[in-house]
């Protein structure tokens, strides 16, 4: 059992958790993920490790509460335990001294990009974090990222905070101004990562994307997370999660992400019904 030491709401729909997992905390590096199973009837699902404290033996996770599993996670309280946490899984994010690196993130990817920015900056790079949210209320970890990156750019879809627009527009301007990054890293919703890869392709900027494929075991056993990269089938869990964004078949991955939409909807309705029923009883 993996006890929750600290829990806080980052926004109405995202949650921050510090979880006891000493072995994972000791081994984990930026870009790696864990597989969680919340309870006995739960599914196995991946979450990127945002941070860890090897001394204290904890890892930090951030989740957007959108489906049954993440909502179950969001309902746990400090002192509660997660049934299973496995990891760290996947290859750590590469970090060499390339020069100038732009790290783009959207949605919950903003939490996941934090350790990557730290790692890449520690390798000697000038880091530009470019993060996006739908509106001001959904901007997360701003202070942490401001401290971690050399420069921080914030965009919102509705213009309520930072620049009005998309993260790719910031990158586009940086490139136009002649400040072409030596490398780009993107993590977040699929359309955003795809747009980043499309933007950097003509400039030949090496672009790494961190894929969030559907997984079951997370150890290479099932192939649920397969993705076509450069014409070859790869398993996101053991070959990734970072891949060359210019080689990823986003079209196929987008379709694969939608396999279980009807089931996910059914499961969520059922969960919310039972959750509201339980509240009535309390």
């Amino acid at each position, binding site marked *: 059992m993996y006890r929750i030491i600290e829990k806080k709401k980052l926004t109405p729909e995202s949650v921050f958790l510090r979880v006891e997992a000493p072995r994972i905390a000791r081994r984990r590096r930026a870009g790696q993920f864990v597989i969680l199973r919340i309870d006995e009837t739960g599914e196995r699902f991946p979450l990127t490790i945002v941070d860890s404290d090897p001394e204290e033996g904890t890892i930090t996770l951030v989740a957007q509460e959108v489906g049954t599993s993440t909502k179950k996670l969001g309902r746990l309280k400090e002192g509660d335990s997660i049934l299973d946490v*496995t990891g760290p899984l996947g290859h750590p994010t590469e970090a060499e001294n390339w020069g100038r690196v732009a790290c783009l993130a959207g949605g919950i990817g903003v939490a996941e990009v934090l350790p990557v920015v730290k790692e890449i900056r520690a390798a000697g790079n000038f880091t530009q974090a470019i993060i996006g949210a739908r509106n001001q209320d959904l901007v997360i970890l701003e202070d942490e990222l401001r401290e971690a990156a050399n420069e921080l750019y914030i965009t919102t879809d509705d213009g309520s905070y930072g620049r009005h627009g998309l993260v790719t527009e910031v990158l586009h301007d940086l490139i136009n101004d002649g400040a072409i990054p030596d490398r780009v890293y993107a993590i977040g919703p699929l359309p955003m990562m795809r747009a980043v890869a499309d933007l950097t392709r003509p400039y030949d900027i090496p672009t790494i994307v961190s894929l969030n494929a559907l997984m079951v075991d997370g150890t290479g056993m099932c192939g649920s997370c397969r993705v076509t990269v450069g014409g070859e089938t790869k398993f996101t869990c053991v070959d990734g999660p970072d891949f060359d964004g210019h080689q990823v078949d986003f079209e196929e991955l987008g379709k694969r992400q939608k396999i279980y939409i009807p089931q996910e909807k059914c499961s969520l309705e059922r969960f919310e019904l039972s959750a509201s029923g339980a509240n009535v009883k309390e």
Partner: protein
Amino acid sequence: MAEQRPEERIHNSNEVPYGFTPEQAQLEAERCLQCKNAPCMKGCPVEVDIPAFIQLIKEGDFSGAARKLKETNSLPAVCGRVCPQEDQCEEVCVLGIKGDPVAIGTLERFAADWEMEHPADSSSSLPAQEKAKVAVIGAGPAGLTAAADLARFGYRVTIFEALHQPGGVLSYGIPEFRLPKKIVNLEVKNVTNMGVDLQLNQVAGSTITIDELFQDGFRAIFIGTGAGLPRFMGIPGENLNGVYSANEYLTRVNLMKAYLFPEYDTPVIMGKKVCVIGGGNVAMDSARTALRLGAEEVTIVYRRTRKEAPARAEEIHHAGEEGVIFKFLTLPIRYLEDDAGWVIGMEALEMELGEPDESGRRRPLPIEGSEFMIDCDLVVVAIGNSPNPLLPRATPGLKLGWKGIIETDHETGRTSLPGIFAGGDIATGAATVIEAMGAGKRAARGIDNYLMSKSE
């Protein structure tokens, strides 16, 4: 042996064969000739004293028979169900020359099941575990066998299992109707009751490395991580929605209980017209699972014929009885999709058998111009697995062979690195449960010899 009727059993996940009653078991046991040279024992990878346990059944000492089995076989209820006895002990049974061999497997299942239902106090027979610490990686058939034997030798054993459940392929792969999970859990419990420490959610090579295990005081390590990486054919459309590896399909259903969705959160696609690619036991398991999930039509697509199919005759027979259609001499060459990226069918070629290949089976050759279409809305690819690369990748110096298997000495399980042993599918490529158990057994002995020679 009595079985659930096919038309009934495709609507439930209960076990198919019922097993022997005590009377039937004793009658069958009486047929055993108690051969002095016991050819059956030479056919058993885990060295079960077959005449002795059958004699005890004959005498009505069913607990004694179970104890006799467990002297060398830590998972008798599993073996009694999934061993290919027809190629092992029963193949060489003297009675088999003229008629039916003794039903050794069914007798083994009977004795093991009897003991589960009538548990005896076995605490007094526990060995004192005072010898060195040994780590076992993977709680599948090889790892459980190695762990139990090492505990019996007096070693302090810890098993590190990557999944949240022990059993390996017995838990995620083999379906409930062929191997009830209750049985697996009870046999795993027998192993932990021997004093073996079982740690779940531990991915060796990630959560914990080989070096760390040695630093933590483990004197020897057994790697039994299995053939966990599903193979695909590499044909167009294999990543379409609705194309599963057998591993994923069976893991969703067996380990994650997707057949109970939405009570359990893990979903699985329920196809109406299902094609399973392959001719092994995993293909039969997948096909029969699809039927139980409500498929209207399930077809096994296999490039050779029934004769060359690696599945047990019993499994092919059971699948056929349940209504699985067999399309032999058929090779898929591409999958077709709809606009949303879902599989709607496949193009296939007819095959013919040519000269024997390196496996000794006649090589299937495509017939030119024989392309044809098969409609389907779910495909399960069951063409085998490669060794899981996670641990070898994280363990520099470990010598690997063909397709990434760990090279070992057959008799001792020794690898190229001192103190590290391996066995089961990670060392042979995908094989059977009992062969993995045999390798676990030999490696336990290899580890014992290694540690004894070091302490001298």
